[in-house]
């Protein structure tokens, strides 16, 4: 995504769109973390508390 010497720098609108995309991506990643965590707990169920230590 690097821009050459002959190309215009990012405009404020470009930067704003990029920032919003980054935030959306961060939220999606955070959502995936929650998804995998909760699914792991659900899949383990109550048995996790009864395991031999």
């Amino acid at each position, binding site marked *: 995504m690097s821009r050459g010497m002959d190309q215009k720098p990012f405009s404020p609108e*470009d930067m704003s769109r990029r920032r919003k995309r980054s935030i959306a991506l961060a939220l999606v990643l955070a959502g995936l973390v929650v998804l995998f965590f909760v699914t792991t707990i659900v899949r383990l169920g109550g048995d996790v508390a009864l395991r031999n230590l």
Partner: protein
Amino acid sequence: MSDIHSDISDTSAAAQGGQGSVGDYWTLLKPRVMSLVIFTALAGLVAASGDIHPWLALVALLAIAVGAGASGALNMWYDADIDALMARTANRPVPRGAILPGEALGFGLALAAGSVLVLGLLVNIVAAALLAFTIFFYAVIYTMWLKRSTPQNIVIGGAAGAFPPMIGWAAATGSVTLASFALFLIIFMWTPPHFWALALFREGDYARAGVPMMPNVAGADETRKQILLYSLILVPVTFLPSLLGTTGVLYTIVTALLGAAFLWHAFDVFRLREGEPARRACRRLFGFSILYLFAIFAAIIAERILAVAPFTQVIG
């Protein structure tokens, strides 16, 4: 296909990519199609009456929705050239130049792989395999092959849109059954009258783009006949879930009333052939067909929520 792609890559605004907004990427997912997919998949999940944990059901629906979105993005990547020629689709992000074809492709592939993996790892393999096949069928069989080569494109391609309730069913039970196939058949038979009604009042659009839709290949009269024929097959097919013991009296009554209305609209399309009344009849059938499918699957869900007992299985 390459023309529009090279045109887009030559424009300075989009030359470097990274111009798309969050909204543009959301549009790539075809959210309105996605909503119907989520709804029909939910109906499949609920109708299956498997013992899936509610959280896993939610995960399954999310994965199916993202898989449908991935299909939409791949479709918009490949079809950018013809989308640019049709009024209905010219403003989509790729033909508009907001998102580069390569970006749409990458986005679609990443979501496709992610959704199938999540469904396979967190729910079950059968549902994941069906989702993968559905994405492949829509993106490759329908978009890349059938859409531009045969007026039967949406008849066969309609299978892609018909799989979601089967995937929902498989997510709940880990299996494919005759009862889940009946839900598939309903959407499969519904697709031709739905799309041909659209094609009849958007005929110019498809002809300009060179897409061989039924009206611009076989003519409007033949299309009207085919719409009526498919509608006459569709309505009996909607009673299959009751005969198979999936649904009960509420669904059957709702389906009978809706089916009568659907046939009335289809007959109107067949009867009215000239001018504005003919166009209006096509628009009415198109609009009603969306409501029809939502209502049928809503009846399936409502029956389960209200705990209406299904009929005893008659066939299968």
